[in-house]
């Protein structure tokens, strides 16, 4: 394979979060606008200084990024639209970084925004994908809960992972969320309460599920020079990977596309899992968190139960995990859920946390997982970031 270029002179900065709401009467356009305003306030950038725009949303329809830039008054010379949901944060970073590196754009705003009106979750589901309409929804219409229940059921059987193991992940994330004022769920969650929660789609129970909400996330990708001029603290991109529709012949999803590219991820970064200070992985369900622990190289496939049992995932633990609480506690604002891990990973190493700071954090691994087109997540991506 040809040697990949490093992301020299590219920096990431200004992570912003528009505080989530469980239900919103506003539109995705409004949420996107508020994200840009927050970005502008954080950086001092004027509207016309933004010459690149990368957008992700599920609820902006019928508009795409095209409708969005006209709506928001932008005139970028570089535009991208990412329909990849949970993988969109890392993918936005990858695209924006190369555009900036090559000079196609200089200041790229990466924005994800979704509203959550009373009926939007049902409507988003109903029109999600052709395979879902043909071969998933007609089977009980359990939504992602049912699909991930099947993945979880198989995973638990294959690898001896228990509900207690998943519970430890969920409880740790809730504990991390308690210092985050923007998290929608900040009440204490005990393992007992987790285990006793009502079943949603066996073996998935209430606290295995994220809470859909409205919200927006954004960050800026630019050159070190521009960031310096603006006086912004920055983060460098050590390495990234991305893979779609990996392992199509696996009968049930027991690994993600990360497993195909994980060696490349660490090789390009020049470090190993032990060098990571914060781990921000996509967490629509704890089974996917567990899968990422294996597929990103934190433990071997099949060892995850033991790994979970011996690891402290708290902010002050051995492997601080989803330090804002993750989607499981902070809420899942549609495609913004795929940006939340990115903004949190940035914040911790920029020392601008929403809640408690991971001590001495210099490197974050951010990992995305998106789009259950049929029976599994199709899009995977990961990035290793280091404080500049």
């Amino acid at each position, binding site marked *: 394979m040809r040697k990949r270029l490093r992301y020299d002179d590219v920096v990431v900065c200004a992570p912003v979060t528009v505080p989530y709401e469980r239900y919103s009467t506003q539109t995705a356009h409004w949420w996107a606008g508020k994200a840009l305003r927050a970005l502008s306030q954080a950086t001092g950038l004027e509207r016309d200084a933004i010459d690149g725009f990368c957008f992700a949303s599920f609820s902006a329809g019928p508009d795409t990024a095209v409708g969005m830039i006209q709506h928001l008054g932008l005139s970028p010379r570089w535009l991208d639209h990412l329909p990849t949901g949970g993988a969109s944060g890392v993918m936005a970073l990858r695209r924006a970084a190369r555009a900036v590196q090559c000079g196609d754009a200089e200041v790229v705003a990466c924005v994800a925004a979704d509203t959550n009106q009373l009926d939007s979750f*049902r409507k988003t589901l109903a029109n999600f994908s052709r395979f879902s309409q043909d071969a998933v929804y007609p089977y*009980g*219409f359990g939504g992602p809960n049912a699909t991930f229940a099947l*993945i979880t059921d198989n995973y638990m059987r294959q690898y001896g992972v228990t509900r207690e193991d998943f519970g430890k992940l969920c409880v740790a994330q809730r504990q991390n969320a308690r210092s985050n004022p923007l998290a929608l769920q900040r009440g204490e969650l005990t393992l007992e309460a987790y285990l006793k929660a009502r079943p949603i789609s066996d*073996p998935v129970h209430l606290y295995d599920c994220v809470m859909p909400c409205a919200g927006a996330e954004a960050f800026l990708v630019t050159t070190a020079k521009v960031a310096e001029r603006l006086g912004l603290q920055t983060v460098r991109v050590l390495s990234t990977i991305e893979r779609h529709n990996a392992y199509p012949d696996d009968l049930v999803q027991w690994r993600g596309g990360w497993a195909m590219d994980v060696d490349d991820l660490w090789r390009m970064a020049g470090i190993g899992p032990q060098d990571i200070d914060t781990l921000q992985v996509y967490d629509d369900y704890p089974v996917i968190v567990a899968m990422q622990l294996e597929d990103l190289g934190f433990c071997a496939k099949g060892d995850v139960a033991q790994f979970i049992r011996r690891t402290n995932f708290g902010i002050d633990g051995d492997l601080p995990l989803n330090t804002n609480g993750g989607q499981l506690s902070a809420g899942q604002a549609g495609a913004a859920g795929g940006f939340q891990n990115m903004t949190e990973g940035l914040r911790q190493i920029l020392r601008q946390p929403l809640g408690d700071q991971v001590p001495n954090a210099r490197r974050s691994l951010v990992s995305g997982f998106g789009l259950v087109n049929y029976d599994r997540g199709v899009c995977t991506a990961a990035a290793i970031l280091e404080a500049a």
Partner: protein
Amino acid sequence: MSLRPKPEKRDPLARKVERHVPPGQRSRAAHALAARAATGRFVLQQCADCQAVTYPPRDVCPQCWGDLVWQDQPRGATLLAETTIRATTDLYFRQLLPWRIGTVALDAGPTAIAHLSPTLAVGARAEIRLMLDKGGNAALFALAAGETPDMTDTQWREFVVPVRGSTVLVTDAGHPVGRAVVEALKAAGAASIVAGIAPPATAPAIEGVRFVSLDLTDTRSVSECLTDIAGPLDIVVNTARFVRPGQGLLDQKRALDVGVLGLLRLTQGCGPMLRGRPSAAFVDVISATALAPDAAYPAFSAAEAARLSLLHSFRHEMRGANARVISLLVGAVDDADHQSVPLPKVAPARIGKGVVEALEQGLETHCIGDTATEAMQRWSADPALFIRENSL
């Protein structure tokens, strides 16, 4: 002894339970699958070039981008994972929760999500049935290997029309076919059978069957018969037909009046009664001459073709109403109407059995006997050739 059905137990003040249909949006390829599921086949797409079997339905082979054709597939499968869904935003499934589904590895190759029989355990061998759901769309149902479907299983019952306990109307019990249908439904455990007799024909005595006057050529008679039933009606089997050879105009008119207008009178009358029943069906016993005319029976053939067309429209109308419309295709019947037709002919008793099969196996199109089966095969393969050959 009263032959009227026992009233259903229901709180008279409670709001009637509204029925919904499962999510209905499908791709064109999924509709093609449903069209084949209607006959009870288990087909999946296979690549014409590399032979790979694919699922969910696609428009091109994911291995080599070759063209896909529908092929019958082995029904074997293994259950890999299961879940019991206890929450949904869908109104149809919400009424039916909890609902159990699973991931099956098909012997044909792909994996699929399927509805599960309660006896099927993870790791066990399964047998796949390609069913039609209440919205008329294709759905995979995994039974335990060798299992006879349990007609009391609430999930299986959503895909079939159980005869046991139902109230049934058979339109023309004066004819041997109607009589055989009555007998078959009775044997299958129908709770209440109302059998229509067109005067001046008289009713044979069949225990437990209530005979009422019914002449499909008379709008008033149809409405009086249905008024007489009054209560819940689950299954209507229309066996009425007027079969005469030749070109006689009056015979042609009568064939159309009984077969076509009669069907219209009946469906218009009973449609609202079937609507909203938990499990309802309209079965039309229809001649295979509906597919390609038998030139010796021009009027009858034309009537049957028109009837098939009406059935499609009625099916469309009833799809949102939770009621299945079944076409039971038969060849020449071994009866007085077909004395000069050479063998093979289908026995009325076989048709009666076929009605129960179609209902309890969840079929939408069911061919009874060799003639009808062959007619459907030839028509499916090359309709123009079949019509030509059938009239040579």
